């Protein structure tokens, strides 16, 4: 059995009565968060099924990160250019992109390597999205490199002086890479601080290696303190706490033009990837925990929760069936986009 951080929710002011004015967030917002979390979960479970059915070579993704990921996506200022937020995400970012408006079908076509995959054209793994039109940097497999590239977009935004910030996400194990230290150093240069939200999704695992066996620091975010960076630790399994704290720190970064390191402690529900089975693990499920509260507060019923799940399961399945009939990449397409405007990349044709 895998371990989980013992973080209690800080949002204990929950009302018992439906319609209470004491809700931590408006009812509509709570239900929107829930809806998007379920949508992201349905999609990830479909991706795993696609892999297990032999329609994909590999799965990696983010089931278990919906509470944090969805709320991050909801709060991102989506758009293109310096005045919108830049998102440097890692390969567990499906919940964030669902919340930003990514259609389920985009993710399904990506894992099935279809020519219609809008992120990579059938070239890359599941969850390796690319949406430059939304300032979403390409997701890559090398661990932690996004913490270095985030420096650059944040620098460009700082120079532009607008309201856009950069956000970077990654796992706890990756913080051992030098790029995490680079990010802290470059984000905190005196007089040149960067508008950068540096997040760590701490699921306590690096594939099969436990966090506690490799890290002496209590919290990964503590490393920010050495650079005079504001740090936060949240229960990333709690969508309300995630939403409220992310909102607070993102507003701080926009206002102060300074970085924040935020560690979200959360679950890894289906292991690292298909390489270790992609089977459900005995860890707390953020959706189950959230639904329990929503039902207790009288904001939704069990049946309504189940109906939402069924509807998204059906949508994901339909998208998969549609994608199956779509074309695969042409073999000769390997020469496409080696250089901009398809300038010849084949030395045989120089």
């Amino acid at each position, binding site marked *: 059995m895998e371990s989980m951080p013992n973080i209690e929710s800080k949002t204990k002011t929950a009302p018992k009565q439906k319609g209470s004015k004491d809700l931590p967030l408006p009812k509509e917002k709570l239900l929107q968060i829930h809806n998007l979390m379920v949508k992201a979960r349905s999609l990830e479970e479909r991706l795993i099924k696609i892999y297990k059915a032999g329609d994909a070579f590999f799965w990696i993704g983010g089931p278990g990160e919906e509470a944090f990921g969805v709320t991050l996506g909801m709060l991102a200022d989506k758009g293109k250019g310096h005045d919108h937020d830049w998102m440097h995400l890692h390969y567990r970012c499906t919940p964030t992109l669902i919340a930003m408006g990514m259609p389920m079908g985009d993710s399904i076509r990506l894992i099935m390597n279809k020519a219609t995959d809008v992120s990579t054209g059938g070239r890359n793994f599941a969850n390796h999205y690319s949406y430059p*039109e939304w300032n979403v940097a390409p997701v*890559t497999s090398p661990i932690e490199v996004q913490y270095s590239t985030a420096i650059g977009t944040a620098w460009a935004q700082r120079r532009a002086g607008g309201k856009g910030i950069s956000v970077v996400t990654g796992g706890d194990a990756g913080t051992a890479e030098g790029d995490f230290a*680079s990010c802290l150093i470059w984000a905190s240069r005196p007089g040149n601080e960067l508008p950068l939200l540096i997040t760590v999704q701490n699921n306590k695992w690096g594939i099969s290696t436990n966090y506690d066996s490799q890290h002496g620091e209590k919290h990964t975010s503590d490393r920010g303190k050495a650079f005079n960076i504001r740090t936060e630790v949240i229960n990333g399994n709690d969508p309300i706490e995630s939403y409220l704290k992310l909102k607070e720190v993102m507003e701080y970064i926009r206002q102060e033009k300074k970085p924040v390191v935020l560690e979200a402690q959360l679950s890894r529900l289906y292991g690292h990837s298909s390489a270790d089975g992609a089977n459900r693990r005995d860890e707390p499920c953020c959706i189950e925990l959230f639904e329990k509260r929503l039902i207790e507060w009288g904001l939704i019923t069990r049946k309504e929760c189940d109906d939402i799940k069924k509807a998204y399961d059906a949508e994901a399945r339909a998208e998969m069936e549609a994608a199956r009939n779509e074309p695969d990449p042409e073999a000769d397409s390997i020469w496409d986009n080696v250089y901009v405007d398809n300038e010849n990349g084949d030395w045989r044709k120089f």
Partner: protein
Amino acid sequence: MANMAQAIRMALHFAEENLELKDVFGEDVGAPLGGVFTATQGIKSAWNTPLDERGIIGCAMGVAMAGDRCVAEIQFADYIFNTIDLLKMAGNTLWATNGKQELPMVVMTPNGAGIRGSLYHSHSFDAHASRMPGWKIVVPSTPLDAYGLMLSAIEDPNPVMYLNPKALMRVRGEELIPGEPADEKELKSMIDAPIGDRSKWKPKWPKLEDYRVPIGKGKVTREGTRATMVSYGRTLIVCNQVADKLKAEGIDVEVIDLRSVYPYDWQLIKSSIRKTGRVMFVNEDTEVTNFAEHLAYRTTQELFYELMARPRVVAAKNVPGIGLHPNLEDNTVPQPPRVEAELRELLAETP
């Protein structure tokens, strides 16, 4: 005439005034030093970074993602190796996103030997760079080409690796950069920072003009019919010297300055080899899996029956480093005597 460091400096100034170059950054590139070779002295957008090569390359990628133009410097090519996965990523970003995410960035790094720089200030990176598809790689050998290649690199929508030869940074050119004053003392007084306190110094830039060297286009620096030497960077100068020596003996050898390692000007190479029937590729990176071996391979594949002699690759000996003592360095990277000997052997070979 400007030297190469001054030429790069003038190109960067022209680009920040005319090509929307927003950032020039790296270790010690800003005031007061302006780069260890002074190539960024007086550049208003130049700023100093932490001593962190990975941060420099990552920052450049991010700036480029955001759509701004930048030139990032790695102080010596010898120190670029710990960034190689980021460089690979920069090269594959357009491809991995099926054309969606462009990375218009320039990485400038002094390359090669010739300054008695020992193990970690003498290395070459051109062979490694040539194994990173998606990058364009340029190597100037004259100040004018350094100027023209830099402007082309900055405006190119792809990542461009700009390998400026360390040994040539102080070598003056034979051609004026458009707008450059003819008197080199006048130029120096305008754009070279004074020794000592520089806190109030500002450069007085000449009225520079646009000048481009197209990436992928080489040039013939010595015309000849007996053999072809293909080179770039410091060893191009060596090839010119050797060709001039043989010319005095009545042996005319063609020399091609490739200027771009990738994409490379195969049509120029091919037409020359067809004329001479003999070819030697010269550079100073280590000889095993050297980029020149690819050119030699292609020569045998496409021109085998037109050759009068085996193609030669003259490169650095395949040893782990370049030793400090001149006996060691000179026996490692190609020098005029070795290039001349190899050339004479090539000329003497009979089919």
